[in-house]
């Protein structure tokens, strides 16, 4: 090692060698410093990255929506077109738009260039003038057009994407799925103009509701079957309702089952006709605040009716079913745009959102579920513009006089608001506002229910039941270990319990789910008896030990009480389980589960909070125990010795001196244990049914934030609202545990300082 000696007097190196050595050493020193600095900061940066990345993924949820102009050009007109637009839509690829003009021509135009691709006059438009238009799907691909001679045509527009020469091309065509002849819903002889239309399609069946100028309403259900041989479409009417509707009708709408016909009157009255009855009965609801209805539409899924009023508000109504299975039309919520009357309502095709236009040319994008206006902006100066939203909700077409404007809409997550995430929301199909988490379903007009409240509730429920078990056991155990236990025993006991902290939680969860849950279900009375009997047995054993002969007592050194108690506890646990069957037969009529559900009306799940409380309780005991024990053990000895010297008993010293001094440490132990219980995933995943219900019932399950992430994350679509909300759940967990742990850590450091000064 002499060659590294830097002193020149003792060196065998030439001065040059020495200098080069010094240089190399210096270089190494810098290199080491650089590497360590870089590595250290890098690792810390990587850790910090977790937080920033989570925030970055969550951010788009709360980013305000935006709209930008993509271009504007004069309205694509067919020959002889007067520019009036009865209907406007945009296909999936945002390339082709279609409009129905006043002459009954469907004009397909290129959205990017504003040129007319093709225009076709629909059947019957050559002999009559269109007077009413309705579309069954919010996409507007199927259209029912009513004419001034009482006839109706149902036409289908279809768009196909092809790749000739590797260039995406969208082609459009129209066909008549129910035959090319115009329909006569009111009968061949009635020629009063069709004033209102509603159409519903359900596979091969369509339901058409029409009202004519005489106030006559016909709702007809028609089944179409294609003849295998001739490929001709045969049409049979399966149901027909007729009645008369007077008053200033604004619009009529059919719901998704075809059970109800909604009639919106300009006066602000909304009527429901129950079509399931032979003679349709009706009920009526008035819009709140003396409002007059100006426009209306059905939200995606055709459950909710949206009505725009003359005061700039949009009202959502749907049929609410009560316990007796009666339906009642109910006003659910109102959202405001501005003060001007709403002139157009355009529902989106993929989510429960819609766009609204008012008389001042202001357009707003809304989410019905979140009760939120995501975006509003002025797009037109005229009051009679027509708008359309693309199927993906990312384009807005505005026809403003003879002008067509195209806008790009950035509105990826309209369904998210503080209220939708944490508050009670009145979802479609429910009888009252509720906290519900249900992120996905098979059908695509499903209303996602993103309330984090039941999950947060489940998380806290799990943690609380775990803490109820863990806190007394861990803290009492720590008190005994730190202060009363024989030091030789302490050396083995503490690591043994700490070993449990390292036990994979998947094992605890698996035991809880497959062993504990059936065991508890089978011997439920035993579980509660055990909780009561065990402390009693311990006390009785202690009392008996006190009365035991001196000779026997002196055999066992002080501080070995836990070993003595082990058989007693084993007995206290085993006895109730042995007697469980007897208890059930004697007190609960043979089966506690049946007794619980029938007599007390408490629902019972096999994998419930009780099981989780036990399993997770044992998982957090070592954490709390270890930290609490450290805090108690480190209480300066001169304090306890002083107390004992003054004549206090060891227990008094414990209660009056040690415990108060160490209480911050115990507090921080409890906090850290709580943090662990909140974030635990595998135990709750395996030991509960994972149903997101909100009840404090100990015999029911729950779903925690962490288990929810584990269950749903792999199936979630990247970048979707659901995906980001799961990230939000992770961020909530992160922040919560980080906060709890930091508080605990600061308390602990203060305590250490205090011990130092004592």
């Amino acid at each position, binding site marked *: 090692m002499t060659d590294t000696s830097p*002193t020149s007097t003792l060196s065998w190196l030439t001065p040059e060698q020495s200098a080069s050595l010094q240089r190399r050493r210096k270089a190494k020193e810098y290199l080491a410093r650089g590497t360590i600095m870089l590595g*250290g900061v*890098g690792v810390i940066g990587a850790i910090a990255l977790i937080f920033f990345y989570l925030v970055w993924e969550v951010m788009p949820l709360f980013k305000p929506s935006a709209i930008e102009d993509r271009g504007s050009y004069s309205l694509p007109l067919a020959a002889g077109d007067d520019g009036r637009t009865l209907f406007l839509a945009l296909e999936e690829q945002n390339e082709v738009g279609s409009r129905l003009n006043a002459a009954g021509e469907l004009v397909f135009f290129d959205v990017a260039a504003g040129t007319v691709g093709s225009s076709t006059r629909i059947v019957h438009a050559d002999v009559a003038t269109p007077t009413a238009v309705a579309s069954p799907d919010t996409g507007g691909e199927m259209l029912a057009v009513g004419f001034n001679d009482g006839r109706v045509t149902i036409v289908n527009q279809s768009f196909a994407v092809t790749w000739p020469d590797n260039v995406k091309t969208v082609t459009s065509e129209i066909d008549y799925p129910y035959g090319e002849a115009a329909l006569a819903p009111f009968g061949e002889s009635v020629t009063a103009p069709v004033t209102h239309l509603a159409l519903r399609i359900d596979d091969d069946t369509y339901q058409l509701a029409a009202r004519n100028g005489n106030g006559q309403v016909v709702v007809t259900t028609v089944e179409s079957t294609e003849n295998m041989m001739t490929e001709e479409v045969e049409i049979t009417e399966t149901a027909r309702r007729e009645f008369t509707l007077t008053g200033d009708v604004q619009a009529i709408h059919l719901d998704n089952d075809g059970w109800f016909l909604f009639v919106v009157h300009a006066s602000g009255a909304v009527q429901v006709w129950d079509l399931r009855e032979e003679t349709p009965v009706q009920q009526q609801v008035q819009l709140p605040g003396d409002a007059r209805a100006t426009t209306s539409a059905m939200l995606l899924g055709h459950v909710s009716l949206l009505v725009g009023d003359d005061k700039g508000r949009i009202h959502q109504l749907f049929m609410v079913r009560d316990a007796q299975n009666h339906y009642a039309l109910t006003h659910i919520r109102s959202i405001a745009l501005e003060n001007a009357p709403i002139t157009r309502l355009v529902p989106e095709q993929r989510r429960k959102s819609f766009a609204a236009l008012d008389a001042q040319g202001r357009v707003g994008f809304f989410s019905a579920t979140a009760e939120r206006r995501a975006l509003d902006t002025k797009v037109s100066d005229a009051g009679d513009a027509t708008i359309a939203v693309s199927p993906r909700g990312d384009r807005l077409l505005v026809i403003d006089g003879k002008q067509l404007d195209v806008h790009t809409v950035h509105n990826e997550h309209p369904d998210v608001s503080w209220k939708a995430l944490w508050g009670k929301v009145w979802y479609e199909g429910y009888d009252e506002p509720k906290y519900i988490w249900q992120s996905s379903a098979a059908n695509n007009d499903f209303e996602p229910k993103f309330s984090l409240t039941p999950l947060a509730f489940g998380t806290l429920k799990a943690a609380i039941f775990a803490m109820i078990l863990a806190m007394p056991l861990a803290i009492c155990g720590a008190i*005994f270990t730190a202060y009363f236990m024989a030091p030789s025993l302490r050396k083995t006991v503490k690591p043994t319990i700490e070993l449990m902290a390292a036990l*994979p939680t998947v094992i605890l969860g698996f035991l809880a789910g497959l062993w504990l849950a059936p065991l508890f279900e089978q011997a439920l009375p035993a579980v509660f008896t055990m909780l009561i009997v065990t402390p009693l047995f311990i006390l009785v054993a202690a009392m008996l030990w006190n009365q035991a002969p001196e000779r026997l007592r002196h055999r066992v050194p002080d501080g070995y009480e836990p070993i003595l108690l082990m058989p007693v506890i084993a007995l206290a646990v085993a006895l109730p389980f042995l007697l469980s069957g007897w208890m059930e037969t004697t007190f609960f009529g043979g089966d506690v589960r049946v007794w619980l559900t029938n007599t007390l009306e408490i629902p019972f799940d096999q994998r419930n909070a009780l099981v989780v409380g036990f399993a997770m309780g044992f998982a957090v005991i070592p954490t709390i125990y270890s930290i609490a024990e450290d805090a108690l053990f480190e209480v300066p000895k001169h304090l306890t010795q002083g107390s004992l010297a003054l004549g206090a008993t060891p227990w008094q010293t414990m209660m009056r001196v040690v415990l108060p001094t160490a209480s911050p440490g115990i507090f921080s132990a409890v906090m850290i244990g709580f943090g662990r219980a909140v974030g635990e995933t595998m135990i709750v995943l395996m030991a509960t049914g994972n149903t997101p219900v909100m009840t404090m019932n100990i015999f029911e399950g729950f779903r925690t934030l962490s288990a929810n*992430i584990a269950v749903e994350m792999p199936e979630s679509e990247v970048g979707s609202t659901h995906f980001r909300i799961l990230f939000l759940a992770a961020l909530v967990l992160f922040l919560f545990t980080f906060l709890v*742990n930091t508080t605990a850590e600061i308390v602990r450091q203060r305590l250490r300082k205090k011990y130092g000064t004592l």
Partner: protein
Amino acid sequence: MSIKTVQNKGLGHWYRQGTPWIWLNAGALAISLMAVLGLLGYIFAKGIVHFWPHDVMQAEYVAEDGSRETVLGEIAADEVVATTRLREAGEWVPNDHIENERQLVKVGNRDVFGRDFRWVISARLENVQFPTDAWLVERREWGNFYGRVVNIKENGNVIAEGEAAWPEFVARVDRANALDAQIVDIQKGAIGRINYGIEQLRLEEKKLALEHAPAPVPADALADIETRRKALQADYEVLTAELGNLYDQMKRDAVTLRTTTGSEHEIPLAKIVFVERPNALSLPEKIGHFGHKLWEFVSADPRESNTEGGIFPAIFGTVMMVFLMTLIVTPFGVIAAIYLREYASQGWMTRTVRIAVNNLAGVPSIVYGVFGLGFFVYFLGGNLDALFYPEAAPAPVFGTPGLMWASLTLALLTVPVVIVATEEGLSRVPKSIREGSLALGATKAETLWRIILPIVSPAIMTGMILAIARAAGEVAPLMLVGVVKLAPTLPLDANAPFLHLDRKFMHLGFHIYDVGFQSPNVEAARPLVYATAFLLVAVVAALNIVAIVIRNRLREKNKQLEN
């Protein structure tokens, strides 16, 4: 409190002394201790008993109308149930005891009976015996078969009948298993390699097309690929012929067995894994069986959707993942600790960072999983794919959960453990040693490398072991970043580049979750789950004990250094 009462050693004094409270505290500790020990003991007992041969019980099961049915099988569990509950379930109970014992019997023969477990009420069992001629046949499909032998056939001709067939039978099953081993060897080895090679060629061709686009790929390059593909396909033909030959040989033998209901079933020996006459085993044979089953458990692949066979891929996957994680976490954790303790100025900033690092150990592991999935898999992986593997699109290479991302995620999860342990070691190095080294003219780097690191190496070791123990038992984040229930290939094999960081892998902890909770036949899988749990607990506990011992030694040594 008068002096009199103090001298009185009665209950009052006992109470005032606070003794009952002390005893209650002792009780709490005793409960915690018993829970730990009981848990370990329970898993040990349940896990190990799986490998010991169980006797096969035969009994007559009496029904209410006096009819009898013969039951043959292993007793899997028993429990005591209130008689009323049994009656409510529609069971006939012959006595009026408050409780009755019932047993879960594994009767096997799932293809015959529909399910392989049934509950029987002990009081209705008569003529219980353990016949030595009851055969247990473990099959590759449909679980165990319990019954008696009728005959053994070779190419359809009976060559042995009755119990005398046993030695012949064992020999022929061994032959069939040897053939099966050869088949698996060819399928997994040679054919696996060819499939891999063909897939690589497909990617190579696509890559060439992408590189040359829009021009066509030069013909000579295509021809080269085509020749190589032809060569592989030729190899493949040879191997399939060989396989066909082996399959034919496998088909030679069959055994006919009779169930307790009298129906006879012919089982080809190709479908048999293991045979035994459990009741006829002597103690050494039982020990031999135990060893055989234990070996099968750790070395074989799983069968029957993970409910039978071994867990070798799960062990291998866990070890592989933990090994990679250790390679990443140790240097970075140590460097970060050294930076925090030796290089960073010890101001509030460093204190804050230290608290933050400490607290990260308490952040739920699922949060790391979410981060790993979002950042590593979708962000980094997605970009890596776009940059380096355009030919694989739309199939992701690194843009999907896999071994590398799992290791990285767990490295991030365990880095606080290594940092904290190393920092603790560094803080215990006496100042005198450090100052002594510097005073002799060593640079900081030299002091660190030659003096400090050797002293703290046990602390680093402790941190590493604790990190390994934590990673080995962690499941929640892995569910998001790379674990699967059944991986067709191991992440390490003979196909270049040998280590496939993009592959998904199996993991012991996830195996427990999956088999115990997602399996279609939980009852049959239960013993295997317990055995897997035992293995995992044993590994994690052993690692922790080693870490604790090392840490204690280190503390002793540092104390000596200080003196």
